[in-house]
């Protein structure tokens, strides 16, 4: 039933697709950059600073989504012992961590001209920093623990515990008084971003997804081969 999860079935699988994902990524990137840097208008209050959003928001979304996926993978690893999800989680971690850092840095650059400060200890910013540290703990657990089977358990546990932070980040702007503004795009209700700014944002998000996907597939292949070479299976 779970044959598709066996490593020999996905080692060779993605080589044929990855080229087309790269093509799609590059064309979307060019399109998205032109839209967000030149075509889209400046904001009525922020001016051109608003363009930072086209990097900041997709990076933040992805770092949350990737960690959520890692948390679920951690659960599947611990409870059902699917080795596949250990590898998924392990290959996702550095990608999510990078996006988390991008989000923190671009947010900081945006905050200086907009709020008047690079950093504030409000709920959203602090919980995002906590996420960065959880990513670091996760990655370190693989580096420090040499025994594969032990590292697999510890890292899965870290990703499960870190999962609790994800809703806190998402809803921090509603639960606390924060300097950070609430979400402009909600699951219910119309977005409060004008459509001329929403389109580049969505396209830049797709660009980031493609980028993450390419990196993920390459890393997953590497981790699978690495595991096979070290005969952990």
């Amino acid at each position, binding site marked *: 039933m779970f044959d598709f999860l066996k490593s020999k079935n996905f080692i060779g699988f993605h080589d044929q697709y990855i080229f087309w994902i790269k093509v799609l990524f590059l064309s979307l990137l060019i399109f998205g950059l032109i839209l967000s840097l030149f075509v889209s*208008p*400046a*904001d*009525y*209050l*922020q001016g051109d600073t*608003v363009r930072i*959003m086209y990097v900041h928001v997709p990076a933040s979304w992805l770092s949350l989504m990737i960690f959520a996926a890692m948390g679920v993978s951690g*659960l599947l690893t*611990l*409870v*059902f*012992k699917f080795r596949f999800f250990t590898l998924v989680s392990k290959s996702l971690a550095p990608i999510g961590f990078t996006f988390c850092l991008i989000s923190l840095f671009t947010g900081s650059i945006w905050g200086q*001209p*907009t*709020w*008047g*400060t690079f950093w*504030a*200890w*409000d*709920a959203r910013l602090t919980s995002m920093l906590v996420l960065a540290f959880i990513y670091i703990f996760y990655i370190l657990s693989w580096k420090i623990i040499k025994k594969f089977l032990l590292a697999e358990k510890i890292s899965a546990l870290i990703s499960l515990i870190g999962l*609790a932070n994800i809703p806190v980040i998402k809803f921090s702007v509603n*639960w*606390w*008084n*924060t*300097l950070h*503004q*609430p*979400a*402009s795009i909600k699951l219910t209700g119309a977005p*409060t*971003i*004008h459509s*001329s*700014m929403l389109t580049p944002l969505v396209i830049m998000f797709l660009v980031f997804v493609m980028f993450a996907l390419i990196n993920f597939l390459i890393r997953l292949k590497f981790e699978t081969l690495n595991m096979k070479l070290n005969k952990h299976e």
Partner: protein
Amino acid sequence: MNKNVKKRIIFFLISVITFLIIGQYIFKSLRKNTVYFFTPSELFILSEIPRGIIRIGGMVKKNSLNKKNNTYQFIITDFKQEVKVEYVGVLPNLFVEGQGAVIEGKLIDRLSLKAENILAKHDEKYMPKEVADALKNKGSWQKKYGK
């Protein structure tokens, strides 16, 4: 499904429930004790006036900003309560009447504050200048859009 998997599922469910119960208490106390800023109404119902530096946040009331010598005076409101603010220094670019701001400073009394630092708060509305102008001209500019 074999026996061990069942055991682990049950263990997992129990730990999730325990975690949710404990987490709820942590969350409640966190909400009470980690305040980045007070709104004027929250400040008004506090039993004790906080000494030292605090932050208050809200809208800068329209037509309340004026400048005497080097001192700015304005009112921060959450449409229920108001706090008068005095500030010496440079205002951030996005600090405008009708938009949000977070003020750091010391309370003189419950209703007035001497500011030491001002942060402009941006809301979740993004739109091009032309759209904002058009909305204003049409008269359909709503108070919640700001300026």
